[in-house]
């Protein structure tokens, strides 16, 4: 290669994580992030946005201090333009515009969900997989078809991460509940009955949370956690198997914050086996929201000339995965 690959600064800020990273090609040069954990209850958008506003300057300063080259070597500023919580997105966009103006480098508006997919495509061998994207705010089955990432199935109400955290709070487990539920579940013995519904390749979790809450009074926390994981993961597994079977894509990629759950990883690995497909998962430290994924997706935008003029850089809180024109895949 004669021309060196572009250097991209990535800014993630759609919910409770502020992430800043610098990458070049497939190489992660710097990666910083910090996450807001509310003292109790769920995320309040305004509080999370205030947190991001405090964190971004610190993180960016740290990154710029550690840059192995001058800041004007950076070729583009990528930021999470949506979907996400309005106040958080606006804070992040404000930071991104400022950096872009200061360095006089193009702005790149990245779709957060697409970024989770591009992270997996960059750092695992997965090329054209069925993507199971599981996080606190989103749960989708995604695959590339006719110029776009199509959503084959998704949650019809709350995301799996949100469901786990909500149940965790109900059982007074520390926030975020997901990892604690995973630990508790390992000690579970009895499978308690919960509803099991799947509609096409879509699913819903809020009814399952309600049913699980009712079990807390009369059963051990570990049995409730165990049963909740068994049921919800079985549904995700079945939807994934359907997607593999229908599209014949031959590989599956697990990504998003909940992808760090080892039990879910094992289950999806078995699903891949069942459909003679290969299985990939993003590394644990990059499963949750981060600036690296935004920068990787930003690289594709820059390479395909998809530059965002500042006057058109308003945030898109409801930006859907399948609205993005994916010009970088033939």
């Amino acid at each position: 290669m004669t021309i060196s690959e572009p250097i991209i600064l990535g800014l993630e800020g759609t919910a409770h994580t502020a992430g800043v990273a610098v990458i070049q090609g497939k190489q992660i040069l710097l990666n910083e992030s910090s996450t807001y954990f509310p003292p109790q209850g769920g995320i309040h958008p305004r509080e999370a946005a205030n947190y991001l506003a405090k964190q971004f300057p610190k993180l960016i300063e740290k990154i710029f201090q550690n840059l192995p080259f001058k800041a004007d070597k950076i070729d583009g500023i990528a930021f999470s333009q949506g979907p996400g919580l309005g106040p958080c997105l606006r804070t992040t966009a404000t930071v991104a515009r400022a950096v872009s103006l200061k360095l006089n480098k193009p702005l790149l508006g990245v779709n957060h969900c697409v970024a989770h997919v591009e992270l997996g495509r960059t750092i695992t061998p997965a090329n054209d997989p069925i993507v199971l994207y599981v996080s606190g705010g989103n749960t989708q089955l995604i695959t590339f078809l006719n110029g776009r990432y199509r959503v084959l199935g998704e949650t019809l109400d709350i995301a799996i991460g949100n469901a786990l955290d909500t149940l965790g709070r109900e059982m007074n487990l520390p926030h975020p509940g997901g990892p604690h539920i995973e630990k508790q579940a390992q000690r579970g013995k009895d499978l308690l009955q919960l509803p099991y519904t799947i509609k096409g390749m879509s699913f819903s979790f809020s009814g399952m949370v309600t049913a699980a809450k009712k079990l807390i009074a009369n059963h051990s926390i570990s049995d409730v956690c165990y049963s909740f994981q068994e049921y919800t993961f079985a549904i995700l597994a079945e939807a994934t198997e359907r997607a593999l079977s229908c599209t014949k894509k031959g590989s599956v990629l697990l990504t998003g914050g909940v992808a760090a759950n080892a039990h879910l990883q094992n289950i999806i690995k078995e699903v891949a086996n069942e459909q003679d497909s290969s299985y990939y998962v993003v590394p644990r430290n990059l499963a949750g929201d981060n600036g690296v994924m935004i920068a990787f997706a930003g690289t594709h935008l820059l390479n395909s000339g998809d530059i965002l003029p500042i006057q058109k850089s308003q945030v898109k809180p409801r930006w859907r995965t399948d609205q993005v024109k994916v010009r970088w895949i033939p």
Partner: protein
Amino acid sequence: MDPMNLLKKGQIAKGAEAIIYRGTFLQDPIAIKHRLPKAYRHPDIDNRIRLHRLRSEAKVMTSARKIGVSVPCLMGIDIQNHILILESLEGKILFEKMDSLPTEKLQPIFLKIGRQIGLLHSNDIIHGDLTVFNVLIQLEEKPSLIDFGLGKISNEVEAKADDILTFYSTLKAIEPASKILFSTFLEGYLGVYPEGKNTYEQMKKIQSRARYIAREDRLE
């Protein structure tokens, strides 16, 4: 006849849930649908689901056939082994068909599918998994419905709306002309089942409830 012997015959298709084998019964070709256990889920969940779906499929398919909806004839059921024996249909699944035909050629097929679903719903029968992978197009572009494991008998408008929303969603995921084809489908649906306008209204409600629905994806 021991169905397990027939299983030695050639596999013709592998779905997400089941393996389909071809066999013959009194010289007629039959399809043997075997729901396999899945190692990735708890055996209790696995048994519960497979048994429930086997029973539902047998019941709902039979009801659909009685009212004149085109479905394979159910010829036998083996509950212990999770096996259904079905009439084998010649044809291509809708998903493959859509690859080979232009929109104008697909429209008459979607009209007929709409009529079949209208007939189903006017008799309070829910398919439960109405995707482009579960409609089989036979000779002379005649659609038949398969895979009723998630089906049920219900007069709830919500269940009917779920059916047509599932159909629209899988269509939208694979087909650029999804809006035209879906409106042709609706034309057939409403023609047979005028009260189906409530189904459609409910479908739009569910859609707007769902998260991040893009404005251009909402149906007017």
